[in-house]
C-alpha cells in the first residue's frame, strides 16, 4: 500500500486478506503496542490485580431488519460474542448511534427495544452511550457502535492466543454455518428466493461459560465476516500447523446450501453471528460436544475437522470422493455490509 493514489475499497472491510493488510500497514503501524499486537477479538487488560477484556464493534448492516434479527440485536450479540470467545464474562456495554436525518423514530424504537431485550438475555448492562445525527444522505439510515468490557479469569486469559494447539486436536462448531450472511443477502438483493433461511444472530456467552466451566478449551473464535475459512486460516497462520476439514461433516442448512450453489459462494466464507469454533483435544472435544448439544444454541454441534502436522499453514478440505482442495481466506469483498 505504498501507492499514493491507493484508496479504500469495499474489500478492505470484508474481514479477509485485504482488511488484514490494511490493519497491518496502517493501523498497527501507527498504534503499535504489546496489547494490540495480539490482534485478538478482545484486548486483555490488567487493572490492579485482576484482568478485564475490552472490545468494540461497529454495525452498518443493510437492511436494518432481516430474518432472525435487526441491527440492534446484532449490535449486542457481536460485542458480547467477541468478549465471550476471549474467555471473558461480558458485563457492561456502551452504545453509540449515528443516525441519518429523517430516520423514523418508530423504527429507531423497535431497534432500541430489541437491543435492550438482547442485552437482558445476555445479562449485560448498557451503561453509557452517544447520539449523533448527520444530514440526509451523509450516512445510510443508521449505524451503531458498541463497546464492551468483561471480567476474565486468569486461566482463561490466553484462550485467544492459540498457544497449545497440537496435531490431533479437534475443531468443533456449535451448529449450521453461513445462515447469517445468506439471510441478509436474501433480504437485501432482489433474488426473491423462497427460503426460510434465518440469521443465527445470538449471544453465546452463557453457552460458552458452561463449556469453559466444565472442560478444557484450547482456542475459541467466532466466525463472523470471512466465515469459518478465515478463522481457520488465521489459526494455521499462528500455529504453523495444518487443518483438515471433512466436507461431509459440515452442518449447513439446505436453504443456505442451495443459495450458495446457485450463487457460487462457499458456505465456509459466509458470515455467522451465533457461532463459535472451539479447538480442544479429541477427548475433551467429545465432552464439549455433549455440553453444547444440551443447549438450544448448540443442538447441531459437531466436529468438522482436525489439526494435522501435514501441509503446515494450510486448511485443506477433503470431500466425500477423497478429493482434496485448499480452503483459503476470502480475498476481496464477497458480501459487503452484512454486520
Amino acid at each position, binding site marked *: 500500500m505504498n501507492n499514493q493514489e491507493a484508496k479504500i*475499497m469495499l474489500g478492505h472491510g470484508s474481514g479477509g486478506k485485504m482488511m488484514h493488510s490494511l490493519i497491518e500497514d496502517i493501523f498497527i503501524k501507527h498504534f503499535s503496542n504489546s496489547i494490540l499486537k495480539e490482534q485478538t477479538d478482545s484486548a486483555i487488560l490488567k487493572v490492579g490485580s485482576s484482568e478485564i477484556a475490552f472490545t468494540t464493534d461497529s454495525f452498518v448492516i443493510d437492511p436494518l431488519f432481516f430474518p432472525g434479527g435487526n441491527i440492534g440485536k446484532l449490535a449486542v450479540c457481536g460485542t458480547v460474542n467477541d468478549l465471550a470467545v476471549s474467555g471473558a464474562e461480558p458485563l457492561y456495554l456502551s452504545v453509540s448511534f449515528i443516525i441519518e436525518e429523517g430516520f423514523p423514530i418508530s423504527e429507531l424504537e423497535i431497534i432500541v427495544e430489541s437491543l435492550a431485550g438482547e442485552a437482558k438475555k445476555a445479562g449485560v448492562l448498557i451503561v453509557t452511550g452517544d447520539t449523533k445525527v448527520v444530514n440526509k444522505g451523509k450516512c445510510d439510515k443508521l449505524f451503531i457502535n458498541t463497546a464492551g468490557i468483561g471480567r476474565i479469569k486468569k486461566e482463561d486469559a490466553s484462550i485467544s492466543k492459540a498457544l497449545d494447539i497440537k496435531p490431533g486436536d479437534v475443531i468443533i462448531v456449535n451448529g449450521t454455518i453461513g445462515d447469517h450472511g445468506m439471510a441478509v443477502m436474501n433480504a437485501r438483493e432482489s433474488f426473491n428466493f423462497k427460503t426460510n433461511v434465518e440469521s443465527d444472530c445470538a449471544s453465546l456467552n452463557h453457552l460458552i461459560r458452561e463449556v469453559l466451566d466444565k472442560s478444557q478449551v484450547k482456542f475459541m473464535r467466532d466466525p463472523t465476516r470471512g466465515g469459518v475459512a478465515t478463522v481457520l486460516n488465521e489459526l494455521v497462520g499462528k500455529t504453523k500447523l495444518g487443518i483438515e476439514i471433512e466436507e461431509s461433516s459440515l452442518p449447513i442448512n439446505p436453504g443456505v446450501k*442451495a443459495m450458495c450453489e446457485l450463487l457460487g459462494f462457499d458456505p465456509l466464507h459466509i458470515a455467522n453471528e451465533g457461532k463459535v469454533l472451539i479447538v480442544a483435544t479429541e477427548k475433551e472435544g467429545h465432552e464439549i460436544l455433549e455440553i453444547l448439544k444440551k443447549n438450544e444454541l448448540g443442538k447441531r454441534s459437531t466436529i468438522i475437522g482436525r489439526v494435522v502436522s501435514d501441509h503446515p499453514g494450510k486448511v*485443506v478440505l477433503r470431500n466425500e*470422493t477423497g478429493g*482434496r482442495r485448499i480452503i*483459503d481466506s476470502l*480475498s476481496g469483498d464477497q458480501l459487503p455490509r452484512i454486520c
Partner: protein
Amino acid sequence: MKYVDEYRKKDLIISVSDKLKAVSKKEIVLMEVCGGHTMAIQRFGLHSLLPATIRLISGPGCPVCVSSQHFIDMAMAYSKIPGVIITTYGDLIRVPGSTTSLEKERANGSDVRIVYSVLESLEIAKNNPEKKIVFLGIGFETTAPLTAAAILQAKKENITNFFVLSAHKVMPPVMKALVEEGVKIDGFIAPGHVTAITGTAIYNELVEVCGLGVVVSGFEPVDMMQAILMLTEQIESGTPKVEIQYQRVVHFEGNKIAQQMLEDVFELRDDRWRGLGVIQKSGLGIREELSSFDAEKQFSVEVPESTEPKGCICGQILRGLKTPVDCGLFGKKCTPTDPVGACMVSGEGTCATYFKYRV
C-alpha cells in the same frame, strides 16, 4: 440437496472411474471448454480419479477471462462519464484494465453497481430516469439471451436510458480456432449451459471436418466423469460424434425461443479475445435497428490501444498450451487479492481455480 447430491455420490463416481481406467488405452488430451467445468474438476479433485493416459486442459470458456483488455478499458471510460451508472456481474469489477479497475474507479467516485441479473439494470434505469445506465454484457450463448431479453423489454417499455456495452461472444469459432491453430486436442467436453441454448448442431463441424469427439457435460462430478468416459470410448473406438451426457437439461435442438431472441437482437461480428486476438465472427454486436440501446453507438469514448500485462501468460493458458504453474507471476505477483491477468480474477478462471483449490 435434490438434483445435486445424486450427482456427487461417491460409489457412482468411483465406479465410473474404474470403468474409465479399464477402457482407456491411448494417451489423449481432452479440453473442458467451460470455466464452470474447470472449477468442478478442481473443486472435486477429479484429476486424481483419472487414469494416467487422460490429460485435461482448460479452454477459453470463462467469460471474464476472455474479455479483452480493450473492453475493460472501454468500461472504465464509460464509468467516468458524469451521470453514467455502470451495472455489471460481480467478477468483472476486479479485472485490471490497462491502468485501473472498475473497483478502483468505484472508490474514485464512479457509480458501479453489481447486479445478479441484467433485468435489475432495467429497474435501476426506471428508478433513475436522469441517469444513463450502461450494462456490461459479457458471456456466451448462456447469458447473451438474457441481455437480449432485457433490450427487448426496454424497447417494449420505452426505457430510453438503458444501454448495453456488448462483449458477448459465441463458442464454436473459438473452439475451431484452437484446433486450427494446432493445439493438440482429441476431444471436447462441451459446455452444458451454452448447449442448452444453442442445441448441438454448432458442434457438427468439429466432428465432420476436424474428426473430434464432443460430449456435452453437466457440472457435477458424476456428470463430468461420465462425459470423460463417453469421450474416451468414442476415441478408443474411433467413432467421433456429438453426444449429450447432460440430458436432464440439454436437448439436441436447444432452446428455440432463446435462439430467436439472440437472432432478433444480435448479429455476429469479429471480436477480440484476451490473449487470443481477433477471431472472425466470434462476437455478438447489437443490430443496427436496436442501436438506440447500444452504448458504443450512443456515446463515444476514446480508448488508447491496450497492451497485455508483462509476463502474463493468460493467452497461452486460455489456449490450453500452458497451465498456471508455468507462469512466473502465478501465486507471486499475481494472486486473487491482487490479480495481474483476468484468469486470476474470475471464480471460473483457470489461475484462480488452481490458486484456490490445488493442494
